[in-house]
């Protein structure tokens, strides 16, 4: 598919889907907790409200604090154009390592911004986020690298094509989905690694990182997180579809949207059912993700 067609398609979906996804998660969570919950469109109104407010910036902060959210959003936006997370070929033919390191670049900027205000909570969040990515990044990269060796290329378009109907592909995809799911949960700071609705600073991972942000910059950061959620969940959906027989592009697109909806329901259920892990036990959970990725590599090494 020509980039002239996929680019507008992707841009439109980038503007609509992330916030819709977040609203959907909150709605399902509310229903499970016997509440009515906010409307699905609430995140849109929240972002609009934040964009219309002035910022309060600490006196200690320098230019980094003011510029980092924009750089982060730019990196995540570019990554969104490189990963075929909608089931449709992406406008830019993305490479596995390029996307992972782009997302890491965004994390680097936000980490610096958190340290910029001299806030102890920001530093706590930054150090925890860095510790979480020690397991999450290798797990994701190892899982996708196993797929890359299976497909002999590290480009997303070839990686996710797979050989349908092959039993090895199905098992490999299953292991990589487990690894990617654990890595993604940790990276996005969702339960059971971190509670997005907590108010206790000492238990926060991501919220502490963005504690000092307000107004416009906070809107940019929240939107970037929502976009990252959609990209990573869409990627997991594509890996699931790898094991299924090939369809036309339209059917893959609809199946991806369906899988995104299912993933949000699963996320909401796990956020309601699971208790947040104590911070010292988070590596225990993450090691399962890395272990699954290593098993996938073992499988590819043995069976080709």
């Amino acid at each position, binding site marked *: 598919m020509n980039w002239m067609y996929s680019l507008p398609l992707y841009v439109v979906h980038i503007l609509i889907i992330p916030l819709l996804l977040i609203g959907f998660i909150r709605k399902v969570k509310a229903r499970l907790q016997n509440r009515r919950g906010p409307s699905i469109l609430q995140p849109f109104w929240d972002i609009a409200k934040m964009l219309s407010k002035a910022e309060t910036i600490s006196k200690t902060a320098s230019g980094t604090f003011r510029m980092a959210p924009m750089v982060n959003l730019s990196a995540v936006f570019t990554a969104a154009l490189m990963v075929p997370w909608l089931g449709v070929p992406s406008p830019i033919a993305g490479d596995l390592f390029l996307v992972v390191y782009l997302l890491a670049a965004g994390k680097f900027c936000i980490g610096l911004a958190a340290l910029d205000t001299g806030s102890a909570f920001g530093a706590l969040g930054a150090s925890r986020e860095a510790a979480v990515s020690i397991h999450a990044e290798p797990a994701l990269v190892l899982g996708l690298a196993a797929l890359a060796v299976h497909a002999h290329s590290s480009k997303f378009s070839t990686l996710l094509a797979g050989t349908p109907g092959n039993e090895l592909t199905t098992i490999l995809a299953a292991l990589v989905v487990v690894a990617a799911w654990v890595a993604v949960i940790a990276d996005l700071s969702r339960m059971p690694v971190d509670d997005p609705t907590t108010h206790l600073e000492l238990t926060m991972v991501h919220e502490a990182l963005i504690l000092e942000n307000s107004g416009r910059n906070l809107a940019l950061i929240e939107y970037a997180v929502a976009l990252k959620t959609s990209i990573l969940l869409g990627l997991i959906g594509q890996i699931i579809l790898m094991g299924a027989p090939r369809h036309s592009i339209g059917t893959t697109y609809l199946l991806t949207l369906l899988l995104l909806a299912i993933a949000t329901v699963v996320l909401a259920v796990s956020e309601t059912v699971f208790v947040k892990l104590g911070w010292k036990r988070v590596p225990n959970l993450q090691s399962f993700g890395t272990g699954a990725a290593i098993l996938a590599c*073992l499988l590819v090494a043995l069976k080709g």
Partner: protein
Amino acid sequence: MGLPQSFEFGAVSAALLALWMVGITDFRASVTLFGIQSFVLGLVAIAIGARHGEPLLILVGVAVIVLKGLIVPYYLIYAGRRIGCRRDSLMPVSAPTQFFIALSLLSLVLLLRPLHAELPTSTLPAVGILILGMMLMITRRLAVSQIVGFLVLENGIFLYTIGQSHSMPIVVEIGVLMDVLSCVMLAGLLAFKINKTFEHIDVAELTELIG
């Protein structure tokens, strides 16, 4: 010497369950996983027996499911509740490190295949479960966790025998099962006794028994 399709699937899932157990510190969770593992192995035994028309093997499979899949886990959880142990957090190396060590041991066994090419492929999951059971026994400090490790070891031996020659005298296997059951009962009673005498079942602290 044909093994049914489900053998590979069952054996590998049992090995993966054992691997999962190495990474968990919660006692109840590891016992539940052991129960599921025994259940799977019992099903595998039934499948092999059905394929080759060996009624003894089917009987042993049912016995494994009932005894090691239901009764033993229930007893162990009951014992654990009586003693009051929830989580084995006193291990010499942390759970993730143990998990990765176990994973590397398994990978070595699989990758160094040319070195032990005389072993048939069907026994590899059993060897894996054996190694993992031994690892569980070595690295846990609570006595009840070591009992679970021993049980996993026995599961590995069971898988090895049914995978190798399904026409082997099955009476031996029944005998081993009985041994295991009595061992578990005794071990549970001992654990109660140790707890009552020493107020804990931390094996590393039991060095007072040195003469």
